[in-house]
Protein backbone atom coordinates (compact mmCIF):
# COMPACT_ATOMS: atom_id res chain seq x y z
CA UNK A 1 0.00 0.00 0.00
CA UNK A 2 1.11 3.52 -0.76
CA UNK A 3 2.01 5.81 2.16
CA UNK A 4 -0.01 8.98 1.93
CA UNK A 5 1.15 10.71 5.13
CA UNK A 6 4.47 10.26 6.90
CA UNK A 7 5.68 11.66 10.21
CA UNK A 8 9.44 11.41 10.69
CA UNK A 9 10.51 11.76 14.36
CA UNK A 10 8.35 14.80 14.90
CA UNK A 11 8.69 16.68 18.18
CA UNK A 12 6.89 19.79 19.27
CA UNK A 13 7.71 21.96 22.24
CA UNK A 14 5.52 24.88 23.22
CA UNK A 15 7.27 27.88 24.70
CA UNK A 16 5.15 29.80 27.17
CA UNK A 17 6.37 33.29 27.86
CA UNK A 18 5.11 35.03 30.96
CA UNK A 19 6.65 38.41 31.72
CA UNK A 20 10.23 37.55 32.65
CA UNK A 21 9.85 33.78 32.84
CA UNK A 22 9.77 31.19 30.10
CA UNK A 23 8.41 27.67 30.30
CA UNK A 24 8.81 24.88 27.79
CA UNK A 25 6.23 22.13 27.43
CA UNK A 26 6.98 19.10 25.30
CA UNK A 27 3.69 18.25 23.58
CA UNK A 28 5.06 15.69 21.15
CA UNK A 29 8.18 13.56 21.38
CA UNK A 30 9.78 11.67 18.53
CA UNK A 31 6.48 10.88 16.81
CA UNK A 32 6.80 8.64 13.73
CA UNK A 33 3.84 7.24 11.83
CA UNK A 34 2.82 6.29 8.31
CA UNK A 35 -0.72 6.40 6.98
CA UNK A 36 -1.63 4.22 4.04
CA UNK A 37 -4.04 5.26 1.36
CA UNK A 38 -7.65 4.38 2.13
CA UNK A 39 -7.24 3.44 5.79
CA UNK A 40 -8.89 4.93 8.86
CA UNK A 41 -6.41 5.64 11.62
CA UNK A 42 -7.47 6.83 15.05
CA UNK A 43 -5.53 8.69 17.70
CA UNK A 44 -6.45 7.74 21.23
CA UNK A 45 -5.15 9.34 24.37
CA UNK A 46 -6.00 11.24 27.51
CA UNK A 47 -6.30 15.04 27.55
CA UNK A 48 -2.94 16.61 26.78
CA UNK A 49 -1.63 13.48 25.05
CA UNK A 50 -0.79 15.48 21.90
CA UNK A 51 -3.66 14.47 19.58
CA UNK A 52 -4.63 17.98 18.49
CA UNK A 53 -0.97 18.99 18.17
CA UNK A 54 -0.43 16.16 15.68
CA UNK A 55 -3.46 17.21 13.65
CA UNK A 56 -2.43 20.87 13.63
CA UNK A 57 1.09 20.01 12.50
CA UNK A 58 -0.40 17.94 9.69
CA UNK A 59 -2.52 20.93 8.61
CA UNK A 60 0.38 23.37 8.76
CA UNK A 61 -1.15 25.33 11.64
CA UNK A 62 1.77 24.46 13.91
CA UNK A 63 5.41 24.01 12.96
CA UNK A 64 7.32 21.01 14.32
CA UNK A 65 10.25 21.82 16.62
CA UNK A 66 12.16 18.95 15.03
CA UNK A 67 11.52 16.20 12.50
CA UNK A 68 9.30 16.59 9.46
CA UNK A 69 5.96 15.64 7.99
CA UNK A 70 5.09 14.76 4.42
CA UNK A 71 1.73 14.61 2.72
CA UNK A 72 2.20 12.65 -0.50
CA UNK A 73 5.84 13.66 -0.39
CA UNK A 74 5.18 17.36 0.20
CA UNK A 75 5.51 19.48 3.32
CA UNK A 76 2.15 20.56 4.80
CA UNK A 77 3.45 24.12 4.79
CA UNK A 78 3.09 24.24 1.01
CA UNK A 79 -0.11 24.95 -0.87
CA UNK A 80 0.25 21.80 -3.02
CA UNK A 81 0.00 19.60 0.08
CA UNK A 82 -2.89 21.57 1.57
CA UNK A 83 -5.00 20.95 -1.53
CA UNK A 84 -5.04 17.27 -0.57
CA UNK A 85 -6.29 17.68 3.00
CA UNK A 86 -9.65 18.45 4.53
CA UNK A 87 -9.67 19.45 8.19
CA UNK A 88 -12.45 19.46 10.74
CA UNK A 89 -11.43 21.04 14.05
CA UNK A 90 -13.22 20.27 17.30
CA UNK A 91 -16.36 22.44 17.59
CA UNK A 92 -16.03 24.30 14.27
CA UNK A 93 -17.51 27.80 14.08
CA UNK A 94 -19.25 29.25 11.05
CA UNK A 95 -20.58 32.72 10.39
CA UNK A 96 -24.14 32.60 11.75
CA UNK A 97 -25.74 35.02 9.28
CA UNK A 98 -25.16 33.03 6.11
CA UNK A 99 -26.46 29.77 4.70
CA UNK A 100 -24.65 26.46 4.26
CA UNK A 101 -24.17 26.89 0.46
CA UNK A 102 -22.67 30.37 1.03
CA UNK A 103 -20.34 28.91 3.66
CA UNK A 104 -19.26 26.06 1.39
CA UNK A 105 -18.75 28.31 -1.63
CA UNK A 106 -16.51 30.53 0.51
CA UNK A 107 -14.33 27.57 1.51
CA UNK A 108 -14.36 26.34 -2.07
CA UNK A 109 -12.89 29.68 -3.18
CA UNK A 110 -10.25 29.50 -0.44
CA UNK A 111 -9.29 26.07 -1.75
CA UNK A 112 -8.50 27.64 -5.09
CA UNK A 113 -11.65 26.37 -6.81
CA UNK A 114 -14.43 28.22 -8.56
CA UNK A 115 -17.92 28.57 -7.09
CA UNK A 116 -19.70 25.33 -7.94
CA UNK A 117 -23.33 25.10 -6.80
CA UNK A 118 -23.70 21.59 -8.18
CA UNK A 119 -20.75 20.36 -6.11
CA UNK A 120 -22.07 22.24 -3.05
CA UNK A 121 -25.49 20.58 -3.37
CA UNK A 122 -23.86 17.19 -3.85
CA UNK A 123 -21.87 17.55 -0.62
CA UNK A 124 -24.88 18.93 1.26
CA UNK A 125 -26.87 15.90 0.18
CA UNK A 126 -24.08 13.61 1.30
CA UNK A 127 -24.00 15.13 4.80
CA UNK A 128 -27.79 15.31 4.98
CA UNK A 129 -28.16 19.08 4.94
CA UNK A 130 -29.68 19.59 1.50
CA UNK A 131 -33.18 20.20 2.86
CA UNK A 132 -31.72 22.86 5.19
CA UNK A 133 -29.80 24.70 2.47
CA UNK A 134 -31.86 27.90 2.77
CA UNK A 135 -31.56 28.14 6.56
CA UNK A 136 -28.97 30.37 8.17
CA UNK A 137 -26.22 28.63 10.14
CA UNK A 138 -27.52 30.30 13.34
CA UNK A 139 -30.61 28.08 13.04
CA UNK A 140 -28.56 24.88 12.92
CA UNK A 141 -28.28 22.43 15.82
CA UNK A 142 -24.89 21.28 17.10
CA UNK A 143 -25.12 18.06 15.04
CA UNK A 144 -26.00 20.02 11.90
CA UNK A 145 -23.03 22.34 12.45
CA UNK A 146 -20.79 19.30 12.80
CA UNK A 147 -22.16 17.95 9.51
CA UNK A 148 -21.51 21.33 7.91
CA UNK A 149 -17.98 21.06 9.33
CA UNK A 150 -17.56 17.75 7.56
CA UNK A 151 -19.00 19.27 4.38
CA UNK A 152 -16.43 22.09 4.39
CA UNK A 153 -13.67 19.53 4.88
CA UNK A 154 -14.96 17.54 1.89
CA UNK A 155 -15.94 20.35 -0.47
CA UNK A 156 -12.64 20.52 -2.37
CA UNK A 157 -12.47 16.71 -2.72
CA UNK A 158 -9.32 16.11 -0.66
CA UNK A 159 -7.51 12.79 -0.46
CA UNK A 160 -7.07 12.89 3.30
CA UNK A 161 -9.60 13.87 5.95
CA UNK A 162 -8.28 15.03 9.32
CA UNK A 163 -11.01 14.97 11.94
CA UNK A 164 -10.38 16.27 15.45
CA UNK A 165 -12.97 14.84 17.84
CA UNK A 166 -15.68 14.58 15.18
CA UNK A 167 -18.36 13.25 17.55
CA UNK A 168 -17.50 15.32 20.60
CA UNK A 169 -20.60 16.71 22.35
CA UNK A 170 -23.10 15.13 19.96
CA UNK A 171 -26.21 13.14 20.88
CA UNK A 172 -26.32 9.37 20.12
CA UNK A 173 -28.32 9.80 16.91
CA UNK A 174 -25.96 12.46 15.56
CA UNK A 175 -22.98 10.26 16.51
CA UNK A 176 -24.53 7.37 14.58
CA UNK A 177 -25.07 9.59 11.52
CA UNK A 178 -21.55 11.06 11.61
CA UNK A 179 -20.08 7.58 11.99
CA UNK A 180 -21.95 6.30 8.94
CA UNK A 181 -20.89 9.36 7.03
CA UNK A 182 -17.20 8.80 7.86
CA UNK A 183 -17.48 5.16 6.78
CA UNK A 184 -19.15 6.10 3.50
CA UNK A 185 -16.44 8.70 2.78
CA UNK A 186 -13.80 6.05 3.46
CA UNK A 187 -15.50 3.67 1.01
CA UNK A 188 -14.80 6.25 -1.69
CA UNK A 189 -11.09 5.65 -1.08
CA UNK A 190 -10.36 8.63 1.16
CA UNK A 191 -7.82 8.25 3.95
CA UNK A 192 -9.17 9.29 7.34
CA UNK A 193 -7.10 10.35 10.31
CA UNK A 194 -9.15 11.11 13.39
CA UNK A 195 -8.79 11.67 17.09
CA UNK A 196 -11.33 10.87 19.74
CA UNK A 197 -11.85 10.33 23.43
CA UNK A 198 -14.55 7.84 22.61
CA UNK A 199 -12.98 4.37 22.59
CA UNK A 200 -16.17 2.74 21.31
CA UNK A 201 -16.29 5.10 18.34
CA UNK A 202 -12.72 4.38 17.31
CA UNK A 203 -13.37 0.67 17.80
CA UNK A 204 -16.29 0.83 15.37
CA UNK A 205 -14.65 2.70 12.53
CA UNK A 206 -10.86 2.45 12.66
CA UNK A 207 -8.50 0.03 10.93
CA UNK A 208 -5.71 1.04 13.25
CA UNK A 209 -5.52 2.94 16.54
CA UNK A 210 -2.48 4.79 17.82
CA UNK A 211 -2.36 5.12 21.61
CA UNK A 212 -0.63 8.24 22.83
CA UNK A 213 0.55 9.23 26.26
CA UNK A 214 2.24 12.52 27.06
CA UNK A 215 3.20 13.13 23.44
CA UNK A 216 4.63 9.66 22.79
CA UNK A 217 3.27 6.66 20.91
CA UNK A 218 2.94 3.85 23.41
CA UNK A 219 1.19 1.33 21.20
CA UNK A 220 -0.24 0.89 17.70
CA UNK A 221 -3.17 -1.54 17.62
CA UNK A 222 -4.54 -3.26 14.54
CA UNK A 223 -8.28 -3.91 14.20
CA UNK A 224 -7.90 -7.68 14.51
CA UNK A 225 -6.15 -7.23 17.88
CA UNK A 226 -9.14 -5.59 19.54
CA UNK A 227 -11.54 -7.84 17.68
CA UNK A 228 -9.80 -10.88 19.18
CA UNK A 229 -9.67 -9.38 22.65
CA UNK A 230 -12.93 -10.15 24.52
CA UNK A 231 -12.83 -6.82 26.35
CA UNK A 232 -11.98 -4.93 23.21
CA UNK A 233 -10.00 -1.75 22.69
CA UNK A 234 -10.86 -0.29 26.08
CA UNK A 235 -8.96 -3.06 27.88
CA UNK A 236 -5.96 -2.72 25.58
CA UNK A 237 -5.92 1.06 26.08
CA UNK A 238 -6.07 0.88 29.87
CA UNK A 239 -3.39 -1.80 30.03
CA UNK A 240 -1.14 0.15 27.71
CA UNK A 241 -1.46 3.24 29.91
CA UNK A 242 -0.84 1.19 33.08
CA UNK A 243 2.28 -0.40 31.57
CA UNK A 244 3.54 3.01 30.55
CA UNK A 245 3.01 4.39 34.05
CA UNK A 246 4.79 1.40 35.57
CA UNK A 247 7.74 1.90 33.23
CA UNK A 248 8.03 5.50 34.35
CA UNK A 249 7.76 4.74 38.04
Amino acid at each position, binding site marked *: MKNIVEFFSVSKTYVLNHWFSMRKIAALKDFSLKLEKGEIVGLLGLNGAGKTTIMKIL*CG*LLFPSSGNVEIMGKSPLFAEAKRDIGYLPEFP*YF*HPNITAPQTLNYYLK*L*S*GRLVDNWQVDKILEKVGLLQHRTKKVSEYSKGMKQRLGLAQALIHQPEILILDEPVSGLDPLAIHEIRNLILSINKEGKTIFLSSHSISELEKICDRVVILSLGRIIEVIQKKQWEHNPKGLERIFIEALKNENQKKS
Partner: protein
Amino acid sequence: MKIKKSLDVIVAIFTRSLFEYCSRKLFAILILITVFLIYFSLLVGIMAVDYEKRVLMDLGLGFIELMSFAYLVYISATSISEEIQSKTIYLVFSRPVARLEYLLAKFLSLFALAAVIVFYSGVFHLLLLHLRGFLCPAEYFVALAMIWCKLSIISAITLFFSLLSTSPLTPIIASLIIWMGGHMTPEIKFLIEKAEGFSAFVLNLSRYVLPNFQLYNLRDTLQMPPHDYSLYYMLSWILAMFALSGFVFRKKEF
Protein backbone atom coordinates in the same frame (compact mmCIF):
# COMPACT_ATOMS: atom_id res chain seq x y z
CA MET B 1 -3.06 31.70 -13.25
CA LYS B 2 -1.37 31.79 -9.85
CA ILE B 3 -2.06 35.53 -9.54
CA LYS B 4 -5.70 34.97 -10.50
CA LYS B 5 -6.09 32.29 -7.80
CA SER B 6 -4.39 34.55 -5.29
CA LEU B 7 -6.71 37.43 -6.19
CA ASP B 8 -9.76 35.17 -5.85
CA VAL B 9 -8.67 34.19 -2.35
CA ILE B 10 -8.02 37.82 -1.34
CA VAL B 11 -11.40 38.93 -2.73
CA ALA B 12 -13.18 36.05 -0.92
CA ILE B 13 -11.64 36.87 2.47
CA PHE B 14 -12.08 40.61 1.90
CA THR B 15 -15.81 40.37 1.09
CA ARG B 16 -16.46 37.88 3.88
CA SER B 17 -14.67 40.07 6.45
CA LEU B 18 -16.40 43.25 5.32
CA PHE B 19 -19.78 41.53 5.43
CA GLU B 20 -19.02 40.27 8.92
CA TYR B 21 -18.00 43.72 10.20
CA CYS B 22 -21.10 45.35 8.73
CA SER B 23 -23.54 42.68 9.91
CA ARG B 24 -22.71 43.09 13.59
CA LYS B 25 -25.29 44.66 15.89
CA LEU B 26 -22.59 47.00 17.13
CA PHE B 27 -22.22 48.41 13.61
CA ALA B 28 -25.93 49.28 13.45
CA ILE B 29 -25.74 50.83 16.93
CA LEU B 30 -22.68 52.87 15.90
CA ILE B 31 -24.42 54.23 12.81
CA LEU B 32 -27.48 55.14 14.92
CA ILE B 33 -25.37 56.93 17.54
CA THR B 34 -23.47 58.81 14.82
CA VAL B 35 -26.73 59.87 13.22
CA PHE B 36 -28.05 60.96 16.61
CA LEU B 37 -24.90 62.96 17.39
CA ILE B 38 -24.93 64.66 13.99
CA TYR B 39 -28.58 65.51 14.55
CA PHE B 40 -27.66 66.84 18.00
CA SER B 41 -25.20 69.23 16.32
CA LEU B 42 -28.26 70.94 14.80
CA LEU B 43 -29.24 72.23 18.22
CA VAL B 44 -25.76 73.55 18.92
CA GLY B 45 -25.66 75.05 15.41
CA ILE B 46 -28.88 76.97 15.97
CA MET B 47 -27.46 78.42 19.18
CA ALA B 48 -24.35 79.58 17.30
CA VAL B 49 -26.56 81.92 15.18
CA ASP B 50 -24.16 83.48 12.63
CA TYR B 51 -21.75 80.55 12.67
CA GLU B 52 -24.38 77.87 12.32
CA LYS B 53 -22.95 76.43 9.08
CA ARG B 54 -19.42 76.26 10.47
CA VAL B 55 -20.55 74.70 13.73
CA LEU B 56 -22.76 72.19 11.93
CA MET B 57 -19.88 71.18 9.67
CA ASP B 58 -17.22 70.98 12.36
CA LEU B 59 -19.32 69.09 14.87
CA GLY B 60 -20.69 66.72 12.23
CA LEU B 61 -17.24 65.91 10.86
CA GLY B 62 -15.92 65.57 14.42
CA PHE B 63 -18.62 63.08 15.35
CA ILE B 64 -18.10 61.11 12.14
CA GLU B 65 -14.38 60.85 12.90
CA LEU B 66 -14.85 59.96 16.56
CA MET B 67 -17.43 57.24 16.06
CA SER B 68 -15.65 55.72 13.05
CA PHE B 69 -12.42 55.69 15.04
CA ALA B 70 -14.09 53.88 17.96
CA TYR B 71 -15.58 51.13 15.79
CA LEU B 72 -12.55 50.72 13.55
CA VAL B 73 -10.10 50.41 16.41
CA TYR B 74 -12.33 47.83 18.09
CA ILE B 75 -12.70 45.82 14.87
CA SER B 76 -9.00 46.06 13.99
CA ALA B 77 -8.02 44.90 17.47
CA THR B 78 -10.37 41.93 17.50
CA SER B 79 -10.63 40.90 13.86
CA ILE B 80 -7.85 38.30 13.80
CA SER B 81 -7.89 37.37 17.50
CA GLU B 82 -11.61 36.50 17.28
CA GLU B 83 -10.93 34.27 14.29
CA ILE B 84 -8.20 32.51 16.26
CA GLN B 85 -10.46 32.06 19.29
CA SER B 86 -13.39 30.76 17.26
CA LYS B 87 -11.00 28.51 15.27
CA THR B 88 -12.30 29.95 11.97
CA ILE B 89 -8.69 30.67 11.11
CA TYR B 90 -7.96 26.90 11.21
CA LEU B 91 -10.34 26.41 8.30
CA VAL B 92 -8.55 29.16 6.37
CA PHE B 93 -4.94 28.12 6.92
CA SER B 94 -5.58 24.39 6.51
CA ARG B 95 -6.29 25.41 2.90
CA PRO B 96 -3.83 26.72 0.30
CA VAL B 97 -4.09 30.29 1.57
CA ALA B 98 -0.86 32.24 1.97
CA ARG B 99 -0.56 34.27 5.15
CA LEU B 100 0.17 37.45 3.21
CA GLU B 101 -2.99 36.96 1.15
CA TYR B 102 -5.02 36.69 4.34
CA LEU B 103 -3.35 39.74 5.88
CA LEU B 104 -3.80 41.82 2.74
CA ALA B 105 -7.50 40.94 2.63
CA LYS B 106 -7.86 41.90 6.29
CA PHE B 107 -6.11 45.25 5.77
CA LEU B 108 -8.23 46.03 2.71
CA SER B 109 -11.45 45.07 4.49
CA LEU B 110 -10.65 47.49 7.31
CA PHE B 111 -10.03 50.34 4.84
CA ALA B 112 -13.29 49.47 3.10
CA LEU B 113 -15.10 49.43 6.45
CA ALA B 114 -13.74 52.92 7.16
CA ALA B 115 -15.05 54.05 3.78
CA VAL B 116 -18.48 52.52 4.45
CA ILE B 117 -18.86 54.25 7.83
CA VAL B 118 -17.61 57.61 6.55
CA PHE B 119 -19.92 57.32 3.52
CA TYR B 120 -23.09 56.53 5.50
CA SER B 121 -22.44 59.17 8.14
CA GLY B 122 -21.39 61.70 5.47
CA VAL B 123 -24.60 61.18 3.49
CA PHE B 124 -26.69 61.82 6.58
CA HIS B 125 -24.61 64.87 7.50
CA LEU B 126 -24.96 66.30 4.00
CA LEU B 127 -28.69 65.70 4.08
CA LEU B 128 -28.96 67.62 7.30
CA LEU B 129 -26.88 70.51 5.93
CA HIS B 130 -29.07 70.55 2.84
CA LEU B 131 -32.24 70.63 4.97
CA ARG B 132 -30.86 73.64 6.86
CA GLY B 133 -30.33 75.31 3.47
CA PHE B 134 -26.53 75.23 3.42
CA LEU B 135 -24.56 74.50 0.30
CA CYS B 136 -21.61 72.27 0.84
CA PRO B 137 -18.14 73.41 -0.24
CA ALA B 138 -15.97 71.02 -2.28
CA GLU B 139 -13.51 70.97 0.62
CA TYR B 140 -16.10 69.09 2.64
CA PHE B 141 -15.58 65.99 0.50
CA VAL B 142 -11.82 66.41 0.81
CA ALA B 143 -12.26 66.58 4.59
CA LEU B 144 -14.20 63.31 4.50
CA ALA B 145 -11.43 61.74 2.40
CA MET B 146 -8.87 62.98 4.92
CA ILE B 147 -10.82 61.39 7.78
CA TRP B 148 -10.74 58.14 5.82
CA CYS B 149 -6.95 58.47 5.41
CA LYS B 150 -6.48 58.91 9.15
CA LEU B 151 -8.77 55.98 9.91
CA SER B 152 -6.90 53.78 7.45
CA ILE B 153 -3.57 54.58 9.12
CA ILE B 154 -4.86 53.95 12.64
CA SER B 155 -6.60 50.70 11.67
CA ALA B 156 -3.38 49.44 10.05
CA ILE B 157 -1.46 50.31 13.23
CA THR B 158 -4.08 48.64 15.46
CA LEU B 159 -4.09 45.48 13.35
CA PHE B 160 -0.31 45.29 13.63
CA PHE B 161 -0.47 45.69 17.44
CA SER B 162 -3.22 43.07 17.65
CA LEU B 163 -0.78 40.52 16.21
CA LEU B 164 1.67 41.18 19.02
CA SER B 165 -0.82 40.69 21.81
CA THR B 166 -3.26 38.01 22.90
CA SER B 167 -5.62 40.50 24.53
CA PRO B 168 -7.53 43.05 22.42
CA LEU B 169 -7.19 45.62 25.19
CA THR B 170 -3.48 46.22 24.55
CA PRO B 171 -3.85 47.23 20.86
CA ILE B 172 -6.87 49.38 21.72
CA ILE B 173 -4.96 51.28 24.41
CA ALA B 174 -1.87 51.58 22.18
CA SER B 175 -3.99 52.95 19.33
CA LEU B 176 -5.70 55.43 21.61
CA ILE B 177 -2.31 56.78 22.74
CA ILE B 178 -1.02 56.91 19.15
CA TRP B 179 -4.22 58.61 17.97
CA MET B 180 -3.91 61.31 20.62
CA GLY B 181 -0.16 61.68 20.16
CA GLY B 182 -0.56 61.87 16.40
CA HIS B 183 -2.84 64.87 16.79
CA MET B 184 -0.32 66.70 18.93
CA THR B 185 2.48 67.03 16.39
CA PRO B 186 2.60 70.87 16.52
CA GLU B 187 2.66 70.76 20.34
CA ILE B 188 5.42 68.15 20.28
CA LYS B 189 7.46 70.32 17.89
CA PHE B 190 7.00 73.27 20.23
CA LEU B 191 8.07 71.21 23.26
CA ILE B 192 11.16 69.89 21.45
CA GLU B 193 12.42 73.46 21.11
CA LYS B 194 12.02 73.99 24.86
CA ALA B 195 13.15 70.57 26.12
CA GLU B 196 16.66 69.38 26.85
CA GLY B 197 18.45 66.10 27.50
CA PHE B 198 16.46 62.91 27.83
CA SER B 199 13.03 64.53 27.50
CA ALA B 200 14.16 66.17 24.24
CA PHE B 201 15.30 62.77 23.01
CA VAL B 202 11.95 61.15 23.91
CA LEU B 203 10.00 63.97 22.26
CA ASN B 204 12.15 63.77 19.15
CA LEU B 205 11.67 60.03 19.00
CA SER B 206 7.88 60.35 19.37
CA ARG B 207 7.88 62.83 16.48
CA TYR B 208 9.22 60.14 14.18
CA VAL B 209 7.40 57.16 15.72
CA LEU B 210 3.94 58.73 15.83
CA PRO B 211 2.01 59.36 12.63
CA ASN B 212 1.27 63.01 12.00
CA PHE B 213 -2.52 63.07 11.95
CA GLN B 214 -2.54 66.86 11.83
CA LEU B 215 -1.68 66.50 8.14
CA TYR B 216 -5.22 65.28 7.63
CA ASN B 217 -7.02 67.72 9.91
CA LEU B 218 -8.72 69.67 7.18
CA ARG B 219 -11.71 70.02 9.48
CA ASP B 220 -9.94 72.82 11.36
CA THR B 221 -9.14 74.78 8.22
CA LEU B 222 -11.68 73.95 5.53
CA GLN B 223 -10.19 76.43 3.07
CA MET B 224 -6.79 74.77 2.99
CA PRO B 225 -6.12 72.47 0.03
CA PRO B 226 -4.85 69.00 0.94
CA HIS B 227 -1.13 68.38 0.93
CA ASP B 228 0.02 66.43 -2.10
CA TYR B 229 2.26 64.45 0.09
CA SER B 230 -0.42 63.35 2.57
CA LEU B 231 -1.48 60.51 0.26
CA TYR B 232 2.10 59.20 0.02
CA TYR B 233 2.44 59.63 3.77
CA MET B 234 -0.63 57.46 4.34
CA LEU B 235 0.59 54.84 1.88
CA SER B 236 4.00 54.72 3.56
CA TRP B 237 2.43 54.12 6.97
CA ILE B 238 0.12 51.45 5.64
CA LEU B 239 2.92 49.70 3.76
CA ALA B 240 5.18 49.83 6.80
CA MET B 241 2.45 48.35 9.02
CA PHE B 242 1.68 45.68 6.42
CA ALA B 243 5.34 44.70 6.14
CA LEU B 244 5.75 44.51 9.93
CA SER B 245 2.50 42.56 10.29
CA GLY B 246 3.62 40.15 7.58
CA PHE B 247 6.90 39.63 9.40
CA VAL B 248 5.13 38.87 12.71
CA PHE B 249 2.36 36.79 11.13
CA ARG B 250 4.53 34.59 8.93
CA LYS B 251 5.67 32.40 11.82
CA LYS B 252 2.54 32.67 13.96
CA GLU B 253 1.14 29.36 15.14
CA PHE B 254 -2.51 28.65 15.78
